């Protein structure tokens, strides 16, 4: 492959030795991570609902209009919501078109920006987080980190794979900078934050 060799050679000719810098220590630190997370999520059009445990999460979900009115539901979180279709039987992601609600587990949530990490290995289909009309994420309150430095430090300890940070519902401002929620993906994003907050995670 000539292109590969040519590119690498040209880049080698342009090489300069510059040390990798120490990264900023500290980043964002919040006294009340849960509150900050709720505010950050609200600022991007999402909703954060703290609940005591999974049973309470299930009850909270049942009160949501988006859930009560939903016909086609997939929940990947045991004990929270009831699936109306057997996701294991879905072989083609195109069959998920028309999905009203997906309830997905998040590995961690980031206080500075409201982002929740969804580990791709728990998703039978990648479309599950983007194709439903409404998205419900379930995260342990003990798994809130302050900022993205902390989040990626956590992820670096996990096996490398497909995954996504989701911060609020799908949105666009491409027409005259007017914010419209529900562009191509979910029209709403609700985070059920389960349990007590726990100590600041050690990195």
């Amino acid at each position, binding site marked *: 492959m000539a292109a590969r060799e040519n590119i690498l050679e040209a880049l080698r000719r342009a090489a*300069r030795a510059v040390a990798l810098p120490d990264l900023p220590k500290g980043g964002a630190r919040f006294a009340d991570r849960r509150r900050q997370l709720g505010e950050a999520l609200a600022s991007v059009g999402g909703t954060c609902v703290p609940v005591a445990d999974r049973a309470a999460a299930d009850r909270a979900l049942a009160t949501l209009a988006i859930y009560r009115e939903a016909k086609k539901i997939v929940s990947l979180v045991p004990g929270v919501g009831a699936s109306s279709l057997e996701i294991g039987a879905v072989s083609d*992601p195109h069959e998920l078109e028309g999905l009203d609600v997906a309830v997905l587990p998040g590995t961690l949530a980031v206080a500075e920006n409201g982002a929740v990490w969804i580990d791709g290995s728990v998703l039978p289909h990648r479309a599950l987080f983007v194709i439903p009309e409404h998205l419900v994420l379930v995260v342990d309150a003990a798994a809130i980190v302050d900022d993205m430095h902390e989040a990626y430090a956590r992820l670096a300890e996990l096996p490398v794979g497909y995954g996504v940070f989701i911060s609020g519902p799908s949105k666009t401002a491409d027409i005259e900078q007017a914010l419209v929620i529900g562009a191509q993906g979910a029209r709403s994003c609700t985070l059920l934050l389960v349990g007590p907050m726990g100590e600041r995670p050690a990195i």
Partner: protein
Amino acid sequence: MSGHPEAAARFVADDAKAHWHDQSLWWVRKKRDAAAATVPDWEALRSAAARIKEHTLGRLADYLEEFEKNAVRSGAKVWFASDAAEHNAIVHRILAERGITRLVKSKSMLTEECHLNPYLEARGITVTDTDLGERIVQLRHEPPSHIVLPAIHLKKEEIGELFHGELGTDKGASDPKYLTEAARQHLRRRFLEAGAGLTGVNFAVAATGGIVVCTNEGNADMGTALPPVHIACMGVEKLVPRLEELAVFVRLLARSATGQPVTTYTTHFHGPRPDGELHIVVVDNGRSAQLANDTFRRSLSCIRCGACMNTCPVFRRSGGYSYGFVVPGPIGSVLAPGRDVGAHRTLPFASSLCGSCSDVCPVRIDLHHEILAWRQEIVRRKLVPVWKRAAMRLLAFILRFAFLYRLGAWLVRRMTPILPRAIVYSRWNVWGRQRELPPMPRRSFRALYRSRHGRA
């Protein structure tokens, strides 16, 4: 060839719209400021980002090899393209070999740079740009006018009219919510019908072999989760060493671009779907040449946030199309001459050199210095008009002798008020075309200074 001044003149001919464009972008700039202010270590973050880029660009070949090795291990196929033609041929080959005729694309400035869409369309492939702004300009047969806000130059009424004709929305309807919903339904069908999805790449992580794609709409995710084939096109400069460094850029990107704390979706691809394929096309197309140039190599640090455009007093008042290059604004004025200095010779002059671009750049590219360096290069290569070179030479001569300067200034002070307007505002007075000259002072600064402080 028409340059920036001619194209800008067309833009400002619609005075009300030009002001609206200016204000729209300034509003985005203010949102960026507010977002930056929430991050206590913002300036340290920018410095770290600048340094990480400098380091990574300094040993790009090694990182690229590391990336390739890890990406292949995760199951991706990595292709290399020296230029736009090779890039387009690779993408077409991937599609043609699988008999794919419908492609959905999320935003990729690289494919704009390579003119991929017309190349594929000429070969029977239906290409749908799926970012709302990009879909709008695609339906108008226009390129994006801004790298983050592709349809920032359009009023909602114009988009309403376009959608009425193309998507069958109600005549006269211009509510952004209504129009966005119509586009959602239209694009949903395109996603479901597509045989492949193409995305750009915001970051490529050498240590993991992964690529990261950031969107707010979720269009990159729809386009990669439904069709089984994912093609990701990236310039060689997109690499970062590890996830640790990635964190720095993810914190900077959306805040600098739109003032959001992070994009809605920040998707990390490591290998293909179990039932699919991932092709990563790595493109040079002039980047290694720019990197070899010590004056302009820092421009390759750009993460395409668009902050320099939103703040630039010239961009805001002249519009993206006035630059005539895939990446407009201050960064475009540095990148474009690197490709073809003759064709883009007017761009480095489309700047007030105020330095605002350098101040907001999340990776601290010395934009206004590089713009100035291009001016010098362009003058050296005699690519400025003869009259301008002659005027500069005359001025340089006058400034060399104090008495000539004093004489000249005296003549201007005395003659300007008494000469007829037809002469003072003749076609040679470019400055006076849109505005009045200031009233001439009776005494020179030198005389004033001497009268107050004794001898100058």
